[in-house]
């Protein structure tokens, strides 16, 4: 039975896919009478099935050696492409995380999407994401990782564009697709170039190859940079980060997934590629630099946002930046641990704020306030999510960040500074969000604000419980770093940076009337710069979008007037010559005679001279 469960683990993505197909009949155009709700229930059932399967498989595979399966896909000439499946505790744990988060998000969505007709589309896309992410976790091939990432890019486009009658949704979905697509295309270049170097796409074989590889450093640097570019777009890293901000136009339950799990798909590929990236010091340096810039930049931007969802989305970018730093300094395990703790805590935070948005309508932080006494469960969930995300012992992320900084302490101390700053900034930003939602006076929008439906509170509290228990779970699985050999100074620094961020945030946003609200920084342009995300939209518009726009206009003009014109010119010349040569037929018979005489003379002249 146990063996059977692990051997059929590849069924887990299929459950979700079957669920996605089964929801289609409840589209409003097909079943017109009974409403869309069964679509959600079918999907919930399939996700529950997938979750249980992966949980039992995890218990079976724990402390067992990993197994490999290979499903042949395509054999052409000398190229054999098969779908390798890696059944190990890490991959199945990732599937448990994906299906678990999806289960909670889907229960949440039953409540949140109460007043919506588009359940079939919504749940089908959620199931597509679940399927894609489980398949990504299972597959052991860079090629199929790329395939799945592209399918998920399309899924993002459709899911962000769920309510396509809103203009901002349409532009947001467009940007999400194109930005991620650019990264994916660069990744494809890297994937193809890597095959000619290594001759394989299997991660395990790539790691073997990388351990003894002897390639031109410039080649491997370029390949590695291309391989980084894909996850860079997926994880919303600078400068491909604007899409995550605009993807906040999508429905909240999908945001739960996106913020916690989907952005981690890029990180997953990156972690798996770490042995290859390690061949190039430049690539590792670039990873660290991208991660550090994003982490600091995004966490400062998060502070200046007035939209709840956007304030959280920039924290996601920042934490993915920390994952980049972890991979760049070759700490795979830390990166995986950070992805896990971040997913749980961020999922909880988004669920909480989604519940607030659901019955306060506004997402504007400046119009919320004073909800603590009426929404204690949401408030507690937000606090726990915050503590789970920042480095606050004994919660999850503390251990991940501690492991990260502990390894950085001796090698690259400046990165420890970056982590501390990011941690303090995130602590400040989350405290600010908490203070603006739950603290202060009630505002017009929050005068009457009951706790949300049980369907939304239940997954929130379940996830709250899991966030609280995460350190215990990690300890029982012996995933926590050993306290005895850790640097206690780093732990103290991390804790103090969190406490500093939280307390400063509390003083400013919960500390009564000493600070006038809304708060203005001393220098207005700086506040605007952060609030408008370093004017990234404008930078895009004046650099790459402008260049592509102008180039395409020039090319269209060339096609229309030069290429088409050259061909049309032939026709025009023929018409014109016909029109003008007809005047030879003058109607004067004497002219015809002259022509005959001239022609004969010339002909005779030619004949005689030759």
């Amino acid at each position, binding site marked *: 039975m146990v063996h059977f469960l692990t051997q059929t683990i590849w069924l887990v993505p299929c459950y979700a896919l079957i669920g996605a197909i089964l929801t289609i009949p409840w589209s409003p155009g097909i079943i017109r009478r009974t409403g869309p709700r069964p679509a959600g229930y079918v999907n919930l059932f399939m996700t529950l099935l997938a979750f249980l399967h992966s949980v039992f498989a995890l218990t079976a595979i724990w402390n067992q050696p990993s197994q490999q399966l290979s499903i042949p896909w395509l054999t052409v000439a000398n190229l054999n492409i098969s779908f390798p499946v890696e059944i190990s505790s890490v991959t199945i744990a990732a599937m448990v995380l994906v299906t678990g988060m999806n289960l909670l998000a889907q229960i949440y969505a039953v409540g949140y999407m109460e007043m919506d007709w588009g359940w079939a589309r919504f749940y089908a896309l959620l199931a597509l994401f679940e399927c894609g992410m489980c398949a990504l976790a299972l597959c052991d091939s860079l090629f199929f990782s790329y395939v799945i990432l592209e399918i998920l890019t399309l899924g993002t486009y459709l899911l962000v564009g769920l309510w396509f009658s809103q203009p901002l949704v349409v532009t947001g979905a467009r940007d999400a697709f194109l930005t991620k697509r650019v990264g994916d295309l660069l990744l494809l270049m890297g994937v193809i170039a890597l095959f000619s170097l290594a001759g394989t796409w299997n991660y395990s074989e790539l790691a073997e190859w990388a351990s003894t590889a002897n390639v031109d450093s410039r080649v491997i640097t370029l390949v590695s940079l291309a391989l980084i570019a894909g996850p860079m777009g997926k994880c919303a890293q600078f400068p491909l980060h604007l899409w995550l901000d605009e993807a906040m136009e999508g429905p909240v339950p999908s945001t739960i997934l996106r913020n916690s799990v989907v952005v981690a798909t890029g990180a997953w590929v990156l972690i798996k590629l770490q042995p290859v990236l390690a061949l190039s010091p430049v690539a590792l340096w670039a990873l660290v630099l991208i991660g550090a810039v994003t982490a600091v930049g995004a966490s400062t931007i998060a502070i200046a946002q007035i939209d709840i969802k956007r304030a959280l989305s920039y924290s996601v970018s920042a934490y993915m930046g920390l994952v980049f730093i972890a991979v760049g300094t070759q700490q795979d395990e830390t990166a995986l641990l950070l992805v896990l703790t971040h997913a749980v805590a961020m999922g909880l935070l988004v669920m909480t704020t989604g519940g607030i948005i659901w019955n306060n309508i506004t997402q504007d932080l400046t119009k919320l306030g004073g909800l603590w006494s009426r929404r204690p469960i949401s408030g507690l969930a937000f606090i726990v999510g915050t503590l789970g995300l920042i480095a606050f012992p004994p919660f999850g992320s503390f251990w991940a960040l501690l492991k990260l900084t502990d390894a950085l302490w001796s090698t690259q101390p400046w990165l420890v500074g970056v982590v501390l700053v990011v941690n303090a900034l995130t602590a400040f930003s989350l405290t600010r969000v908490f203070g603006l939602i739950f603290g202060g006076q009630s505002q017009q929008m929050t005068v009457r604000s009951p706790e949300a439906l049980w369907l939304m509170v239940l997954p929130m509290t379940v996830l709250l419980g899991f966030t609280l228990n995460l350190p215990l779970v990690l300890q029982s699985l012996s995933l926590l770093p050993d306290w005895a050999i850790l640097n206690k100074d780093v732990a103290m620094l991390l804790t103090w940076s969190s406490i500093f961020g939280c307390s400063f945030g509390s003083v400013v946003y919960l500390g009564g009337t000493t600070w006038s609200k809304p708060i203005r920084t001393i220098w207005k342009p700086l506040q605007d710069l952060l609030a408008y995300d370093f004017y990234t939209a404008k930078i895009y518009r004046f650099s790459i979008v402008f260049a592509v726009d102008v180039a395409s206009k020039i090319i269209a003009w060339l096609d229309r007037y030069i290429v088409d014109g050259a061909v049309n010119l032939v026709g025009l010349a023929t018409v014109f010559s016909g029109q003008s040569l*007809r*005047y030879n*037929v*003058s*109607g*004067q*018979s*004497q002219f015809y*005679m*002259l022509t005959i*005489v001239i022609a004969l003379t010339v002909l005779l002249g030619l004949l005689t001279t030759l």
Partner: protein
Amino acid sequence: MQLQYFLLVAAALFCIGIFGLVTSRNVIRVLMSIELLLNAVNLNLMAFSNFLDAQAIKGQVFTVFVITVAAAEAAVGLAIVLAIYRNRDTVDMEQFNLLKW
């Protein structure tokens, strides 16, 4: 006396005929130019039959035929001119340019 001189005179007469044929505005003068051409041809035929074929004188027989045919042609030509004149009331060649492009 040599053949070439006869041929040159005939050619000169032919060229004068061509010039008249192409430049005249009066239809009658065009017909007259055609007669000049035919006479140039006759001159050629006579010269050749004299100098090259003095025994059989086939050229002279040809000339007789050309003269008869020229007479018939001039008659038909004049008839055509008369027919056009009756319709259009003019014999100016530049008025007869109806069949152009």
